């Protein structure tokens, strides 16, 4: 593949993925309001379009048209930089996530992943530290929240951002350690290779003879640690201390309005998607699912993407479901839970997994 085709393919892929991602984000807000509405025995949005389906569009127009306030005595540069940083960092991590195998359009074969390229031999070359890149980018994303609160020059914002930074730093440890079990089992940091080992394992030696070789089964403890830590990382209920509206108005984005507020909002939802994608890839076999041989070839090549999207949707649904079900933790409970329960559990999980891996080898 020469450099021009590569760049054209990459630009198309980036545009497409960003478009789908942001549309997904917009409709997740709709889904969230609808589902929370049903859970709380009310309707949710119904006025704009059928079933309120145009509500995200109306919200978007409203965000753009609202006045963009810049409060007095803020640290101007950082105040503007913070929401951009949060959104950009959340979007970057999508670049390393693989959505499926390959797709061939008009004679050009390309990997279903922004950073994946087809090698000369026909194999797909993935960035071989994909998981670390996601962890690194997430850890840079903390700056967005921290700087937003500090530069706003408001007590609520500062408290919110202090909470958020402390929470994200604490739970990043448990999050990272919960994934080590997967790395031990798969022997790779490349997301594509982790999925391949699961698909290959399902063919060679399924769990108990019939279950797919997904890592959720041996790593069920790791999965729960990951899920809880990821909820805390994305500042979602029941760990939404940074924006606890009953205590802090809106936490770190209290002073933000218009598109700057929308950027934080979008960053939060894109992060939800990243977490869901990662859970799908690492624990649920990625795009692995039953092959349907009776479908036409093009649909068959898109079927894995469908499975992937379905699994991601399940996690998004879980997010919303939990938001509608659980109350918020107290701040000290959150810290104690992270450091005294999740972290030791994650370490124990690593020790047991590595002992088993060493014993089997």
């Amino acid at each position, binding site marked *: 593949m020469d450099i021009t085709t590569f760049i054209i393919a990459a630009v198309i892929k980036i545009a497409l993925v960003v478009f789908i991602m942001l549309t997904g984000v917009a409709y997740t807000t709709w889904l969230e309001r609808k589902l929370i509405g049903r859970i709380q025995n009310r309707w949710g949005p119904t006025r704009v379009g059928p079933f309120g389906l145009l509500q995200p569009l109306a919200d978007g127009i409203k965000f753009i048209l609202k006045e963009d306030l810049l409060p007095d005595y803020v640290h101007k540069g950082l105040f503007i930089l913070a929401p951009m940083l949060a959104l950009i960092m959340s979007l970057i991590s999508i670049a390393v996530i693989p959505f499926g195998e390959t797709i061939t359009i008009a004679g050009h074969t390309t990997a279903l992943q922004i950073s994946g390229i087809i090698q000369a031999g026909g194999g797909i070359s993935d960035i*071989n530290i994909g998981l670390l890149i996601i*962890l*690194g*980018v997430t*850890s840079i994303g903390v*700056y967005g929240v*921290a*700087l937003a609160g500090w530069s706003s020059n408001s007590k609520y914002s500062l408290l919110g951002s202090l909470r958020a*930074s402390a929470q994200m730093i604490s739970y990043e440890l448990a999050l990272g350690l919960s994934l080590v079990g997967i790395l031990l089992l798969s022997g790779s940091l490349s997301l594509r290779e982790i999925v391949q080992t699961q698909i290959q394992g399902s063919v060679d030696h399924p769990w108990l003879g019939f279950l797919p070789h997904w890592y959720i089964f041996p790593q069920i403890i790791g999965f729960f640690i990951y899920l809880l830590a990821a909820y805390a990382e994305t500042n979602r209920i029941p760990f939404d201390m940074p924006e606890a509206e009953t205590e802090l108005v809106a936490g770190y984005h209290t002073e933000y309005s218009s598109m700057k507020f929308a950027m934080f909002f979008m960053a939060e939802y894109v992060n939800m998607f990243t977490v869901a994608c990662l859970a799908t890839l690492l624990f649920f076999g990625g795009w692995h699912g039953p092959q349907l041989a009776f479908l036409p070839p093009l649909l068959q090549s898109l079927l894995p993407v469908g499975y992937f999207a379905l699994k991601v949707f399940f996690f998004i649904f879980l997010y919303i479901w939990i938001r509608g079900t659980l109350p918020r933790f107290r701040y000290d409970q959150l810290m104690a839970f992270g450091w005294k329960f999740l972290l030791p559990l994650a370490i124990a999980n690593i020790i047991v997994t590595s002992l088993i891996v060493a014993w089997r080898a």
Partner: protein
Amino acid sequence: MVHQVLFIVFGLICVAGAINLLLQRHPINSALSLVVVMASLALIYLLLGAEFVAAIQVIVYAGAIMVLFVFVIMLLNAGEEERTRGSRVALILGVPGVIILAATVGWLLVTGSGQLGSVTIASSDFGETHAIARLLFKDFLLPFEITSVLILIAIMGAVVLGKRES
């Protein structure tokens, strides 16, 4: 070609960040400049093919240590620093020193550019996670473990010192 352009770009960003770190009067701006330096260093590692080191550089330095720096600056609410006149010793010794150093390095680069040669990367798996793991846990296991014990002692010392007040 692309590598060289990228190296120059990130090298310039790195140096600019380092100079900005010294020039800024507000501690948070300095801390953020340091983040820029670390991130561009990581990208230079990436250009060298050391992917794992690059990722660790971002996660550990830019993502963890600098976040704590920024956190502390925010907590203490450190304000702008006053600018002093600067010391006379630095002016008398420093400026000629910088000129001499720059002149020497420049002269060496200009005269010796033919003899510098090139570096070849020893193995194909250079910079990969497996290769680094093999070095750390096989060839250099003892120094690695001793270092980790040292860090543990440092952490425990910090906890003890921090608790002494109450």
